[in-house]
């Protein structure tokens, strides 16, 4: 039998060379196809991240099968058995399946892979951007740190010089500058002077005019400005040719004054002075000014301005304080000197008062006695001169003493009752002799409503009238002199304050002395009342006198709560002296000094008068009660303020309160009693019993509404008078 060969004949003719090449290529393809998955596996195993492993498996399978196909193909070049063909077919089929599956797979996978790529690109960009920003932030932080450090250094001192020097040093260090300079405006403001430099030890006195364009450019903006290294402000060292000068930046530094710190226009720095700060980078370094460096410079410039202004304020206040201390010291010295002077004057017055008056009186007394004896005419003349001179001297001393006491305020009026009409007549009698010699008729006019008996300081009033009338006589060469006295209402010239509770028993006396003599220049009138001022020319000053008369009179008039002034139409037209004084009206129709003695000493008006006595001291309470009982009153006694308030009623006409014990509660009682009885017509009268009746006590009593003050211990007559005065006049303030 013929052996049926199950062999498959190759399709192509067995061309030797071509077949050989095919054979080799297939072999290499197979090898490659087998090694690719191996490589894939190897590298994937190495890499940590690969999301598509199963794709890889698929692909691997595909490749392997392709490889297998090509490998099996090697056997088909020669006659091969059916088994081989079968295997080949199987392999091819499998390969087909897997390849199709892979192809389908890749449709899904490839877009994903591509997008991964895009994302990767995007992330790379982002990373680059973030890196850039990081870089920026870091530089900013650096800058900030530098600024803080610089500011700290600058602001740690209040000394101007240190501030500026430190600024330059720190800036130089931070920015690694070659040179740093500060130009300050001169006093005139027309030039900038090189004040501080970093490297140069002793800067030369180097100025540039302030109106250069580059300077104006810098001053015109608050930013740091790059300027040319060849501009005058930047050329600090002698240029030695070959250098490539580093870049230069200039910035303005506002110099603030105290007056710039008005709260309202803080941003509006109007009239400004600037200093110029110039910063130079190292030459030959190719460095450039970065933005953050410029910002740093601007911030520093501002800080320097503030620090300088603080330093200026401090300087100012230190200066003011030194000035004040000096003034204080000077004032202290002046005060001490004044006190010493016052003490010296007081000592002098004390001496003068006694030591000088005694011999004076002796001289006057003995001279007058001498006058009474037998004397030759020459001797008489001499004695008269001695008498006149010593009288003058005595008057002068009295005047000076009076004036000092008046100014001190230690002079008090001596009130008494006197006859006003008689006073005027006496004055006239005193003046008449001189007036007659000078042929000046004097007339006296007393108003018909002028009270006859008045209360006041008789001696001082006479002094005033005498002085005024005497002046009129002294300074008149011809004409007549008229003296008028009348009652005037208190016009607006009178001071409004009263010492005594006003009861209508006072009036204002106005005295007018008119003469037709020399007259006074209206401009000189104010000077008249100043001490020691003489307004007459030397020729007419024949009368002597110290010029104190009017000053003293004015002060007496003021003490009497009045006013004095002089009117004159001019030189040669005479003048009128007018003064008002306050006097009390006395209802005594007899002469002064004799007290009232009622016919029945015991029971005048007081029978049954209800009186309340408050005194803490048992003994004085008993004595006061005894006094009042003796006068016929019905007396209730209490020993404390509270008891007094409890017991007092509207039936008590008078309340006597002891105010000796220290403490002001005594006076409060007066107020409380007033409060209690405000609605009554007949107010209870309140009188205080006290150990001293000086002015402050009286004023205090008055201020608390008391009607009278009495000095303890009270005598019987006093108590009688007091009671009747209180009941009649509702007022009593004695000068006891």
């Amino acid at each position, binding site marked *: 039998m013929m052996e049926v060969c199950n062999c498959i004949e190759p399709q192509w003719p067995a061309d030797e060379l071509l077949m050989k090449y095919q054979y080799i290529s297939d072999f290499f393809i197979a090898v490659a196809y087998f090694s690719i998955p191996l490589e894939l596996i190897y590298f994937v195993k190495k890499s940590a991240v690969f999301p598509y492993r199963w794709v890889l498996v698929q692909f691997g399978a595909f490749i392997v099968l392709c490889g297998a196909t090509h490998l099996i193909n090697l056997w088909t070049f020669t006659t091969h058995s059916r088994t081989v063909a079968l295997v080949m077919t199987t392999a091819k089929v499998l390969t087909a399946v897997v390849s199709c599956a892979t192809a389908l797979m890749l449709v899904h996978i490839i877009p994903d892979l591509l997008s991964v790529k895009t994302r990767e690109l995007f992330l790379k960009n982002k990373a680059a951007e973030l890196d850039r920003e990081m870089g920026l932030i870091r530089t900013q932080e650096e800058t900030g740190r530098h600024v803080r450090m610089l500011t700290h250094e600058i602001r740690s001192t209040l000394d101007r010089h240190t501030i500026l020097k430190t600024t330059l040093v720190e800036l130089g260090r931070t920015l690694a500058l070659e040179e740093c300079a500060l130009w300050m405006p001169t006093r005139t403001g027309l030039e900038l002077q090189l004040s501080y430099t970093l490297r140069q030890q002793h800067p030369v006195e180097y100025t540039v005019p302030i109106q250069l364009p580059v300077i104006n450019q810098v001053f015109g903006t608050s930013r740091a400005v790059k300027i040319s290294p060849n501009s005058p402000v930047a050329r600090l060292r002698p240029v030695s040719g070959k250098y490539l000068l580093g870049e230069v930046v200039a910035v303005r530094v506002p110099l603030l004054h105290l007056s710039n710190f008005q709260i309202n226009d803080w941003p509006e720095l109007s009239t400004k002075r600037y200093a110029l700060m110039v910063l130079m980078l190292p030459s030959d370094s190719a460095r450039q000014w970065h933005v953050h460096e410029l910002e740093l410079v601007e911030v520093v410039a501002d800080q320097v301005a503030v620090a300088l202004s603080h330093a200026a304020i401090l300087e100012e206040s230190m200066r003011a304080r030194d000035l004040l201390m000096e003034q204080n010291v000077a004032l202290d010295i002046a005060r001490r000197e004044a006190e010493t002077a016052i003490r010296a004057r007081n000592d002098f017055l004390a001496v003068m008062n006694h030591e000088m008056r005694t011999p004076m009186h002796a001289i006057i007394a003995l001279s007058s006695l001498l006058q009474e004896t037998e004397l030759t005419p020459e001797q008489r003349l001499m004695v008269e001169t001695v008498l006149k001179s010593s009288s003058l001297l005595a008057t002068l001393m009295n005047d000076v003493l009076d004036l000092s006491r008046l100014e001190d305020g230690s002079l008090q009026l001596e009130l008494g009752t006197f006859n006003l009409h008689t006073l005027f007549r006496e004055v006239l009698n005193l003046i008449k002799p001189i007036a007659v010699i000078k042929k000046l008729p004097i007339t006296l006019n007393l108003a018909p409503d002028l009270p006859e008996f008045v209360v006041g300081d008789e001696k001082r009033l006479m002094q005033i009238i005498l002085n005024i009338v005497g002046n009129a006589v002294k300074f008149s060469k011809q004409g007549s002199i008229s003296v008028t006295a009348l009652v005037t209402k208190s016009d607006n010239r009178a001071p409004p304050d009263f010492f005594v509770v006003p009861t209508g028993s006072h009036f204002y006396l106005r005295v007018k002395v008119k003469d037709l003599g020399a007259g006074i220049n209206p401009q000189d009138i104010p000077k008249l009342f100043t001490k020691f001022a003489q307004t007459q020319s030397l020729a007419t000053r024949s009368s002597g006198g110290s010029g104190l008369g009017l000053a003293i009179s004015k002060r007496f008039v003021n003490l009497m709560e009045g006013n004095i002034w002089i009117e004159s139409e001019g030189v040669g037209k005479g003048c009128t002296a007018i003064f008002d004084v306050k006097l009390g009206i006395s209802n005594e129709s007899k002469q002064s000094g004799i007290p009232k003695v009622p016919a029945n000493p015991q029971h005048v008006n007081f029978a049954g008068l209800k009186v309340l006595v408050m005194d803490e001291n048992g003994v004085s309470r008993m*004595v*006061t009660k005894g006094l009042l009982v003796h006068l016929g009153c019905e007396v209730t006694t209490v020993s404390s303020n509270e008891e007094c308030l409890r017991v007092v009623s509207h039936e008590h006409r008078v309340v006597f309160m002891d105010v000796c014990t*220290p403490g002001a509660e005594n006076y409060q009682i007066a107020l409380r009693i007033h409060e209690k009885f405000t609605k009554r017509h007949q107010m209870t009268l309140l009188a205080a019993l006290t150990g001293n009746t000086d002015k402050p006590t009286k004023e205090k009593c008055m201020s608390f509404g008391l009607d009278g003050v009495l000095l*303890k*211990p009270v*005598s019987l007559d006093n108590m009688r008078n007091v009671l009747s005065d209180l009941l009649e006049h509702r007022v009593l303030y004695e000068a006891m």
Partner: protein
Amino acid sequence: MDTLVAQLQRQFRDYTISLYHQGFLDDQFTELKKLQDECSPDFVAEVVSLFFEDCEKLIGNMARALDQTGNVDFSLVGSSVHQLKGSSSSVGAKRVKGLCVTFKECCDSQNFEGCVRCLQQVDIEYKSLKAKLQDLFNLEQQIVQAGGRIPQVDI
């Protein structure tokens, strides 16, 4: 003719005048005498005995206050002195009043030794005044008993 009454009266007058001249009494005492009349016949005696009681009490207070060595309350002493001064001036006890003025100054300046000294002097003074006034009143009583009138002594 020197009757007993006249003698007593002269004695009374001289004694009274001597008291004034020695400064034991002053015008206020005279005033007190003026207040004595039919309505209050023993006014002076009452006032004076009240004064001496007051003295005793105040001096006792002050002695106690000054005994607190190291812790003396000068304000208390001062107020007692003030009271005593007021009383003595109301009665006319001139010497006592004068001592009170000095005493007050010592109190104000917190002078312990001064205060103690003043207190002793005040004590002595008021006791002697008391004795003298007692003698005076005795004289008065003798005059009255002898049927006479107490003479008005004008200083």
